């Protein structure tokens, strides 16, 4: 056995493979992932035995219990914590502190509501509400004292928050104002262009057009259009194609349609302008009142409200009144109103600048408050020390996801799931496919035809569709959401690749002399197949194993992403992590998708390099 292995390891192909340094590194990386899998499986088994025998319970242990399945669902800290202890902006830090504050509030209320008869002590409640290794300070009295300081600090924050909201409202109103003014300008221009044309066409004065009701105009337009369409159809041409060659009646009808179209447009534009003027007026009013109340709140919080107060907002109030009146007076050129002294764009712009400035100062203030809050939180929830503290920091190394679970733990556990799925699938697929392919090629005849028919059939449906349909088969059964549908789908589809390749290779080997010699000697066909032919295709089997491994991992990720693989809440996989992180990316939180991609990327890259090296070493002509 040892001698055979040694002979194998020094064969030409393997020597070439060993000389390829990047391939050896890749092999090492894959080996690490396998070790990880072994570790996880070992600790899980020991833990489940330990559930029956108390001595072996691993769930509390910092290192041994790190990668148990339940640890992938356990909350470790606040949500969306960044990795490597990086600092975030004040608002995000506030969210994290708020998480601990809410936890403390809940615990204190629970302590207040202790039923004396039940026998629970404050200490036990404090202990029960710990988050992983980080829990409350032990003494309930001290905890309460620290909690009241925290409470005060958060109250002050409440005031800061309301300022934030007010300033945001002001900025929003100013933006709305700008858009409406722009739209109004465009409508005005349209009216100015259309007015003389329509007036001359309809033979009316401009003032008479004031009362044009858009609805009436549209009805007339529709009637004219129908008439035109009917006449055009009777004449046998398309309503849009009426030109100089058509009959005079048709041309007149078409002309009438065009005029009515313009009239309708004009009437509609006038009505739109009225509405917009009103909205503009309201917006100006709102800005005036909002900025006044914002100034008040800003002063409460301690920021300097003088810049806002020093702005003279009276012109804006006047503009508002004038605009609201002008809404009822049509056709007053808006240009005069907007560019003139009534509407002072400079005032709104300065307001915007001040609002932004104050927002910035507010963020600073919030930051300052958060700086005061964080030490209090650290007092109330002291960080664990020693080895436990170290392991706790390790868990937070890649941050937490949107439910506070450790991304590192989930990413590593997902590696185990991936290796498990990849290994089993690739193994079964390669063994089954190779045996089938070799048998088909070697025995020929109806066996060959049957196998070819089988794999042509299965490969004629797009790969993903077949996987999806097969997973669909398991919907509604208790097996949905476990790995079983995945295994079934993969094993039914992945054997086709190796089958084809091994069949091709066997067809070639069948004609070689040593096979003919073996046949001449009188060996049984099956014996020749198993003892001579299949071992000579084994290099292709390895290459295909490697390829299928990657294929299985990638397909598992995609299927889970589509909702057909592992359900969320039972262990974790890279697919679930990527799926859950889609929402976080919009909030610029890249840790979850980055970690999942990184772990997967390293493994897949290693396998790709390995496959290339195997092909270079064993199959230079790239048969597979």
């Amino acid at each position, binding site marked *: 056995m040892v001698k055979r292995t040694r002979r194998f390891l020094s064969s030409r192909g393997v020597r070439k493979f060993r000389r390829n340094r990047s391939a050896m590194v890749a092999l090492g990386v894959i080996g690490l992932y396998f070790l990880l899998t072994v570790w996880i499986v070992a600790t899980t088994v020991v833990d489940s035995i330990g559930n029956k025998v108390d001595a072996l319970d691993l769930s509390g242990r910092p290192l041994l219990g790190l990668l148990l399945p339940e640890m992938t669902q356990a909350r470790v800290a606040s949500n969306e914590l960044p990795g490597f202890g990086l600092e975030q902006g004040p608002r995000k830090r506030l969210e994290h502190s708020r998480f601990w504050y809410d936890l403390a509030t809940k615990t204190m209320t629970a302590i207040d509501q202790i039923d004396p008869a039940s026998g629970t002590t404050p200490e036990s409640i404090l202990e029960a509400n710990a988050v992983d290794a980080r829990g409350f300070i032990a003494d309930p009295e001290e905890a309460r004292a620290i909690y009241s300081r925290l409470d005060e600090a958060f109250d002050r924050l409440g005031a800061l928050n309301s300022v934030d909201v007010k300033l945001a409202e002001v900025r929003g109103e100013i933006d709305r104002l700008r858009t409406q003014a722009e739209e109004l300008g465009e409508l005005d221009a349209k009216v100015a262009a259309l007015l003389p044309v329509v007036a001359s066409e309809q033979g009316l004065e401009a003032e008479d057009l004031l009362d044009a009701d858009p609805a009436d105009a549209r009805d007339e337009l529709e009637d004219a259009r129908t008439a035109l369409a009917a006449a055009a159809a009777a004449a046998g041409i398309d309503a849009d194609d009426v030109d100089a060659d058509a009959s005079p009646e048709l041309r007149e009808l078409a002309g009438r349609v065009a005029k009515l179209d313009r009239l309708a447009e004009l009437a509609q534009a006038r009505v739109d302008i009225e509405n917009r003027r009103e909205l503009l007026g309201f917006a100006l009013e709102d800005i005036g009142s909002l900025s006044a109340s914002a100034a008040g709140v800003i002063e409460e919080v301690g920021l300097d409200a003088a810049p806002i107060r020093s702005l003279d907002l009276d012109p804006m109030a006047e503009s508002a009144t004038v605009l609201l009146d002008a809404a009822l007076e049509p056709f007053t050129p808006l240009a005069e109103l907007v560019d003139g002294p009534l509407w002072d764009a400079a005032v709104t712009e300065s307001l915007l600048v001040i609002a932004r400035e104050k927002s910035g100062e507010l963020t600073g203030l919030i930051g300052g408050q958060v700086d005061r809050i964080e030490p209090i939180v650290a007092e109330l929830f002291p960080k664990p020390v020693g080895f436990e503290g170290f392991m706790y920091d390790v868990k937070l190394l890649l941050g937490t996801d949107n439910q506070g679970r450790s991304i590192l733990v989930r990413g590593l556990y997902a590696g185990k799931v991936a290796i498990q799925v990849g290994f089993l699938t690739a193994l079964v697929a390669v063994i089954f496919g190779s045996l089938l392919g070799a048998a088909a090629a070697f025995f020929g005849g109806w066996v060959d035809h049957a196998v070819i*028919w*089988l794999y*042509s*059939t*299965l*490969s*004629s*449906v*797009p790969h*993903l*569709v077949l996987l*999806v*349909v*097969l997973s*669909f*088969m*398991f*919907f*509604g*059964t208790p097996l949905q959401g476990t790995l079983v549908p995945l295994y079934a789908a993969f094993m039914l589809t992945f054997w086709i690749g190796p089958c084809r390749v091994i069949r091709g290779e066997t067809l070639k080997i069948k004609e070689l002399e040593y096979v003919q010699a073996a046949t001449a000697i009188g060996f049984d066909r099956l014996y020749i197949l198993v003892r001579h032919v299949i071992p000579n295709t084994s290099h292709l089997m390895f290459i295909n194993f490697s390829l299928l491994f990657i294929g299985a991992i*990638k397909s598992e*990720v*995609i299927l889970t*992403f*589509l*909702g057909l693989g592992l359900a969320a809440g039972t262990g974790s996989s*890279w*697919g679930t992590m*990527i799926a859950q*992180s*889609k929402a976080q*990316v*919009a909030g610029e939180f890249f840790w979850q*998708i980055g970690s999942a*991609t990184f772990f*997967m*990327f390293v493994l*897949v*890259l290693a396998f*790709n*390099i390995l496959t*290339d090296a195997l092909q270079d070493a064993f199959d230079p*002509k*790239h048969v597979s």
Partner: protein
Amino acid sequence: MWAYVVRRLLYNIPVYLGIILVVMLALRVNDPVTAYLGKNASQEQIELKRVSFGLDRPFVEQYGSFLWRLVTFNFEERSWETEQPVGEIIGSAIPPTMMITIPQLVLTATLSICVGLISAFFRGRPADKVLVFLAVLGMSISYLVYIVMGQYFGAFWLNEKLGGELFAIQGYDTRLSEPGFWATSLPTALHSWVTYCALPVLIGVIVAMGYDTRFYRAVMVEESTKDYISTAMAKGVGKRRIMFVHMLKNAMIPIITRVMITLPFIITGSILAEYYFNIPGMGATLLQAINAKDFPIVQTFTALFAALFIISNILTDVLYALVDPRVRLQ
């Protein structure tokens, strides 16, 4: 020649029959009616639905009638969700898919062949190594990550930087499906296409290029080891001429084969890209139908996809036979 074509056609008929058999069986393992109506449906409702769709007939009858409907292009049966005939659904789903897959196919093929050629030309030198490395890197990142990051960086982040909308995060303009729209207002149509379809196309091209470039490079490298190349070089033919006139032509056989194999993709589309970019194409419709357990659509779509694959297989075989006389004579 024609004998070959006829042989291939006849050969593929039992294959297609087999596929329909497999698909129909697979979809009936879990009773489709109960899966659709849910657990709270009354026995009456289940029976009604079953009879109305003919699911109470023996399987052989169902198989036969489904085959007959397929062969006569009868797509009248109605979806369970939306009551639209399946034919209509297919008709409205194909144009969006083609808006994405056709440009994707053309771009991928052109770019990969060029990059493969360059890589083979500079074989062993830094340029080649860098290109191959990039291809392997590209292959090792999941398609999903490209989609999520593409949506974030290509659409969301880029729009903020540019202050306007260059690529839409999701969505599709139904006007793009009408040829009339393209005929009358080409600039608007192009602008709309760029907004909604350019990003999925780009992502698809980047993902596919990793695999294709390696394949085409391998094909070119294999050609370059042949004897006629060394003869040409000994004769003194310039390297450029060798690459583009001699090698490329002979390498076209596997290249064309590979491109032909991806032809059904034009109609079946990319399920993932359509799903996440909210483009109402064939793949997205199929996925929605599966999630809604809408049996008629799933069955017909799968049968259609399979038919397309078989047809493209036949076409590939025929084209291969046309281009490579050695195959014909088998």
